[in-house]
């Protein structure tokens, strides 16, 4: 399933079968929004009107690095340890 790959979720064959059926039903049910979404209606992305919110740039003490790394699956030399990220297609 292409969308599952885009969402970076590995699915089993059984999950793909079940989800595909369910998602078809849900997608056709929610598609009815287009019945009333005529071109003259503006879109609303945010419930309370707000323009850019600005504040003074005040330096604060960040979280201690050790506290943050303590929750990481892998950490080395004060940094996150991550799997290979380059040449993934190689």
């Amino acid at each position, binding site marked *: *399933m292409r*969308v*599952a*790959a*885009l*969402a*970076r*979720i*590995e*699915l*089993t064959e059984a*999950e793909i079968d079940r*989800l595909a059926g*369910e*998602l078809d*039903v*849900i*997608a056709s*049910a*929610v*598609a*009815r*929004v*287009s*019945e*009333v*979404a*005529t071109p003259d*209606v*503006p*879109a*609303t*992305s*945010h*419930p*309370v009107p*707000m323009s850019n*919110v600005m*504040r003074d740039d005040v330096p604060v003490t960040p*979280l*201690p690095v050790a*506290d*943050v790394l*303590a*929750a*990481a*699956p*892998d950490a080395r030399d004060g940094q*996150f340890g*991550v*799997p*290979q*990220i380059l040449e*993934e297609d190689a």
Partner: protein
Amino acid sequence: MSTLVGTTAAELARLLAAREVSSVEVTRAHLDRIAEVDGEIHAHLRTAAAEALAAAERVDAARSRGEGLPLLAGVPISVKDNVVTRGLETTAGSRILEGWIPPYDATVVTRLRAAGMPILGKTNLDEFAMGSSTEHSAFGPTRNPWDTGRIPGGSGGGSAAAVASLQAPLAIGSDTGGSIRQPGAVTGTVGVKPTYGGVSRYGLIALASSLDQIGPVARTVEDAALLHEVLAGHDPLDSTSLDAPVPSFSAAVRDADVAGMRIGVVRELGGEGYQEGVRASFETALGLLADAGAEIVEVSCPSFDYALAAYYLILPAEASSNLARFDGMRFGLRIEPSDGPVTAERVMAATRGAGFGDEVKRRIILGTHALSAGYFDAYYGSAQKVRTLIQRDFAAAFERADVLVSPTAPTTAFRFGEKLDDPLAMYLNDIATIPANLAGTPGMSLPSGVSEDGLPVGFQVLAPAHEDERMYRVSGVLERLLEERWGGRLLDVHGVNGGAR
């Protein structure tokens, strides 16, 4: 069972201030209650007994030194497990965060600590707050204290069941489409979704950022108001936080009067599809408000018929983006693929495949689909237009009425498993609560009685944005009139006692 358990937060505050009880006694009584009944109810995912008692001791010491303390100082509280707590495991009901110890506090948690409120523990929820029953929690469902074969609502079923079964006088919830109000309705408790931006969301594990709102869970309207006052107010750490003074919600409850108020019944949020006992309970409550001098008017919000569809596009779209952070790189679960190269992208897919439950996968994939090229305008773009129409319907309705009312949920608590295999049927539970999230307006649920099946029914009050006080006024009056009629509080009258009815 100690008599301190089941006492309202307002009364506990009075007893504490008068030094008739200590916070350690109150906190210990609730921890004992949790130990007694939560094996059956499963409202809490974990407790923090030592930390809660230490916080209680600090409050007691400060009081004995004669220090001025906030009103709710010493009153314990439970916190939904999608709100981060420094040093206390926070999972959002997901395997992907199992064992995660947050290095910081959510702003609401900072406020609870500053108010001297001991945190008893973290409450259960549908995974990442996606659900209406807690059946989607990775750690097993919470049971409804009224009938342990039934759901406690969701996603905040843990918080609602905790207060309903007297494990905590108060709790924190979060409401994206009804996750505070619908659990309140099906457990006979009070739940409030404040105006969008009225309570900081810094430290709330985001589901859908344009819809999410933290709010109070309580057994009485006044207790909800008192907690709301602790939580509300501007927070520079949340750019959507409203910078406006916080009125006294509890004064609105105490001085409540509905004479001359116009109360609008929303035609689209009732009738067909609503259980008969739910409709009857709603009509009875409406009659009491009319007798108290309110003018009842009918209003129509035709676009509400499209709210559920718009919601199930906007929410998955935003969730698919928000939950991208759970990638196994910086915190939480990391799973390496069982074969092939161990690269970052393959680790992410394996981690998310193993760490997310069915409903989370369903919604992320739906959201990714709705946002993809070729579908964006028809799905997400149209849903945002529906949002405009819903706001217009609210604006027109609030021209004719001061508040709007409806049943909170179309049915009483259903049985476990009843809707688990039918996502659309599950989504219909939130049909009456979703419009307020799409419009950013405040809403609350309070019990209006029991249905023919002996289960509680919720009455929803909706107010215009920034007018949360108004719904407290109406709810305060209605609660008083109903309790006069019942001869006490609903939970007490029906002897709801942690599953042991």
